[in-house]
């Protein structure tokens, strides 16, 4: 019987642990004893998931541990912690270990803190250490690295007295660390020398997309910035930085910080090997061959401390592969490590990021296919090349995904398999949602009201000859209920026709081949004022419920004439036509404007009295105002007479126009408020009231970052800062909620208003019918950046024009209800029956519920019920 061999493993990190596990699982311990010596006070843990330690106030260590009991089941594997291997004697085949006395126990051959162990096989798994660049002041209190649980404990302790922190390094680990600082409640900065984040994995566009995501979380990203020094006496007070590429002595700025985390890369821990005279790679790491053997045949190196063929791998998967290879070698197996896929997919601060294969298109003949959606922050790139088959097909070389990495699972295997791509490879990265519904599975439900799937819709298009939304609606019922799926249905139809090479009709409806934007321009250029002229010159037929309201809206935003003028009254949707919202039983609701949600007791009393006198149901709306329901059409003028006399005006709840600008109480009352949010909300609501737009518009103003007004859920949201206002655009609730995104920060009120004027007019001019600001921005080429160029940088030189159009609107505003009440011709329409104006509609009836009226569904009205 041969003598049992002794394996000593240096380091109990992720890879050392994997080696021990594999040794047990694959039977190596039948012939070998394994002694694992680890420097850290605890057994191996999931370093990849390190940041989740913060989520566990207690028990974080156990949650991360890879060996919860601290011992292997196999008694032939022994783990000794808290022990540092300080020397390898290759002649004697021993290692020297320094342990604190309590860790010594009976295991160690020598008494005291120092022990010597013999090995037949030595496995180095010492990992890597964070690189701390030689920055002045790096030894100050408050400087940390981010690698071990101890580091996290120290950072957490320091964060208790700190308000802001900075991470040096915008790579993968730096962003992990930034996430930690955010979770600890610090205002967080990331400085990166390269011009973009994650320069190793991402290209410029992907890096920019990632920055947007991360800044949305409140992290300030500074790219292209060099750290000059860490300031402060004993403890850190800030980080002095200057622009990369500038000379020393160039102007610097200081980022306020009491916590600094270095994350400027890692260096393999190869000192032990180097001192023992083993070969190391020029860029660090213990040089090993394909079996992970060092220049000494009985010594192996695996994980981050190793450099197979001269390259070190900073990821765990290659380390695991190396651990398996060494166990295999010791079992006389054929396994080799010939390099690893450096593909990465992670969630950084909640953002999906993946980079795989030839992400930078370095292969000859490589082509790039990109999809970018600046609004939702999705960037996807495929690197493809013509395949060797010579049949004109393409194969996938690699790619980058930011914001949505769901395709990673399909894409990465395509790189290694080298299979030919489908004819339309762009489908692989187009979003599955409304943008490119072809990408969604056939069984996906498009219309939830009527349970219509994508397959049903495509069937209607391909088999039943439906060519537009109206036809599909008639055929499948999709879109016939709440209407929220109509844009998706429309996209599906368009995508289908585009995919078979048919020119996609962007026309508004069967009467117009022009899009809303084209019509807007046509109307502006020709100065049309009447639908008849427009349809005669540019359309066919007599219009419908789609084009007529759209043209009414275009005319209204260009002319400020009353919407019930004879030329336009017949174009209006029923809500606009009666300046009220129709309800399910044919009655209407009345919503007086309450700007910013602020109202005097006197006005509240008037609303109460009106509601009582006309027996209306009252409800506080989601828009900070009061809705009065159950008014018969012919009652509307009398109700509004009372309201207008008391100083109310139309709230435009019925129009595709500005609804409300929601406010929080702000600095006037709130102890946290930094600006007068109510004052601004009222001013903005009064400025933009009555503005007819492609879809409804909502705004919000919050007095501080606590955001009680939910401004970022609005088409335009303003949040007060110490210095002024931050302006966010493109938010909404509804069927497809979107968060508004920062357009410009720290604005004076005057600049804010001019940007808003431009933004809103640009939207009114160019958006499609029924397109909220979020979808408009999304479909605008260049997305939010484009909006910023036009609105903030005035790149098109349109600024003054847009502002003067808005000035015309503001100057031309008049209350629609007041004007209606003054015009007998307009009032003449508010009758129940032309031939019986004194008879109310007998089909309308109410019951009482919770002390207020409620409609009885018309079909349920009992015969002979009082009307």
């Amino acid at each position: 019987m041969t003598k049992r061999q002794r394996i000593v493993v240096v380091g109990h990190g992720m890879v050392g642990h994997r080696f021990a596990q594999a040794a047990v699982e694959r039977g190596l311990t039948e012939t070998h004893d394994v002694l694992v010596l680890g420097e850290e006070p605890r057994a191996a843990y999931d370093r990849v998931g390190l940041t989740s330690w913060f989520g566990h106030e207690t028990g974080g260590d156990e949650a991360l541990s890879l060996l919860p009991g601290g011992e292997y089941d196999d008694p032939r594997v022994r783990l000794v912690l808290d022990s540092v291997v300080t020397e390898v004697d290759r002649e004697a085949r021993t290692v020297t270990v320094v342990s604190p006395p309590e860790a010594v126990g009976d295991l160690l051959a020598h008494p005291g803190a120092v022990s010597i162990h013999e090995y037949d096989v030595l496995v180095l798994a010492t990992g890597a250490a964070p690189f701390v660049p030689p920055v002045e002041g790096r030894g100050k209190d408050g400087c940390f690295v981010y690698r071990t649980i101890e580091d996290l404990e120290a950072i957490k302790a320091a964060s208790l007295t700190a308000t802001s922190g900075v991470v040096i390094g915008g790579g993968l680990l730096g962003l992990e660390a930034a996430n930690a600082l955010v979770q600890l409640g610090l205002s967080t900065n990331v400085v990166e020398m390269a011009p973009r984040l994650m320069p190793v994995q991402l290209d410029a566009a992907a890096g920019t997309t990632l920055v947007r995501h991360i800044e949305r979380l409140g992290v300030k990203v500074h790219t292209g910035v060099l750290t000059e020094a860490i300031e402060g006496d004993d403890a850190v007070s800030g980080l002095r930085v200057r622009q990369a590429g500038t000379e020393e002595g160039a102007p610097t700025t200081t980022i306020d910080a009491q916590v600094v985390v270095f994350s400027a890369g890692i260096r393999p821990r190869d000192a032990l090997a180097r001192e023992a005279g083993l070969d190391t790679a020029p860029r660090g790491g213990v040089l090993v061959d394909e079996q992970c053997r060092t220049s000494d045949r009985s010594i192996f190196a695996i994980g981050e401390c190793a450099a197979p063929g001269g390259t070190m791998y900073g990821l765990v998967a290659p380390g695991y592969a190396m651990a398996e290879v060494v166990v295999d070698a010791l079992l006389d197996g054929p396994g080799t490590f010939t390099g690893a896929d450096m593909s990465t997919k992670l969630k950084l601060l909640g953002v999906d990021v993946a980079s795989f294969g030839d992400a930078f298109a370095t292969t000859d003949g490589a082509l790039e296919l990109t999809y970018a959606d600046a609004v939702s922050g999705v960037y996807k790139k495929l690197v493809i090349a013509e395949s060797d088959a010579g049949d004109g097909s393409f194969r996938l070389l690699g790619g980058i995904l930011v914001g949505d990495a769901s395709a990673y699972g399909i894409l990465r295997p395509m790189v290694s398999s080298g299979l030919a791509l489908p004819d339309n490879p762009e489908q692989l990265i187009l979003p599955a949602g409304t943008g490119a519904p072809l990408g969604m599975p056939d069984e996906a439900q498009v219309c939830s009201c009527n349970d219509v799937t994508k397959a049903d819709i495509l069937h209607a298009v391909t088999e039943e000859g439906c060519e537009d939304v109206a036809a599909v609606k008639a055929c499948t019922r999709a879109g016939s209920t709440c209407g929220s799926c109509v844009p998706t249905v429309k996209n599906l139809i368009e995508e289908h026709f585009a995919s078979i090479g048919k020119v996609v009709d962007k026309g508004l409806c069967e009467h117009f081949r022009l899009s809303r934007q084209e019509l807007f321009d046509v109307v502006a250029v020709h100065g049309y004022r009447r639908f008849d002229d427009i349809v005669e010159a540019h359309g066919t037929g007599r219009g419908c419920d789609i084009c007529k309201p759209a043209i009414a809206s275009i005319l209204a935003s260009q002319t400020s004439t009353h919407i019930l003028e004879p030329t336009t009254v017949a174009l209006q949707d029923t809500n606009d036509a009666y300046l009220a919202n129709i309800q399910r039983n044919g009655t209407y609701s009345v919503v007086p404007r309450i700007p910013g949600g602020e109202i005097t007791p006197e006005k509240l009393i008037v609303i109460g009295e009106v509601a009582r006198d006309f027996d209306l149901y009252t409800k506080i709306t989601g828009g900070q105002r009061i809705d009065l329901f159950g008014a018969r059409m012919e009652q509307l003028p009398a109700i509004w007479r009372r309201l207008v006399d008391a100083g109310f005006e139309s709230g435009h709840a019925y129009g595709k126009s500005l609804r409300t600008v929601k406010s929080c109480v702000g600095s006037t009352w709130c102890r946290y408020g930094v600006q007068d949010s109510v004052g601004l909300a009222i001013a903005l609501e009064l400025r933009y009231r009555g503005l007819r737009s492609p879809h409804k518009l909502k705004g919000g103003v919050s007095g501080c970052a606590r955001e009680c007004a939910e401004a970022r859920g609005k088409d335009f949201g303003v949040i007060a800062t110490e210095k002024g206002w931050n302006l966010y655009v493109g938010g909404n609730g509804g069927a497809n909620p979107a968060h508004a995104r920062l357009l410009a920060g720290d604005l004076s009120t005057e600049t804010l208003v001019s940007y808003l004027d431009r933004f809103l007019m640009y939207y009114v001019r160019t958006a499609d019918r029924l397109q909220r600001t979020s979808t408009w921005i999304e479909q605008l080429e260049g997305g939010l950046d484009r909006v910023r160029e036009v609105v903030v940088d005035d790149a098109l030189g349109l600024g003054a024009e847009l502002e003067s159009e808005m000035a015309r609107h503001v100057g031309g505003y008049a209350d629609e209800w007041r004007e209606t009440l003054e015009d007998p011709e307009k009032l003449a329409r508010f009758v129940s029956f032309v031939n019986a104006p004194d008879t109310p509609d007998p089909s309308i009836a109410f019951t009482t519920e919770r002390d207020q009226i409620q409609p009885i569904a018309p079909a349920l009205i009992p015969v002979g019920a009082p009307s």
Partner: protein
Amino acid sequence: MTWTEICSVDAIPLEGGVAALVGGEAVAIFRTYSGEVFAISNVDPFSGASVLSRGIVGSRGDVPVVSSPMYKQAFDLTTGRCLDDDSVSVTAYEVSVVDGRVLVGAASLEPAREST
């Protein structure tokens, strides 16, 4: 056929509608761009509300239509047929215009709504 005189033709807005009571039933009377007058039941069969006269009048192909103000289905003004749902139609009434007065023919009067 009994004819009920409703109003002067000018009382109906061009490309618009009015509601009228004919024998106790609500009837929607429309005037199209070409000046023709049509009458169908005022009750929108999809909601049960008496509102069709408040819909937008236009055309689909060559057919003059009104789209319901409630859920937007289009109804053929000449026949009362719903163009978005074959199984649905509303009563259409005969109309004649005599000396600028609109008359609705009551012979084809059927209950537009079933009473329960």
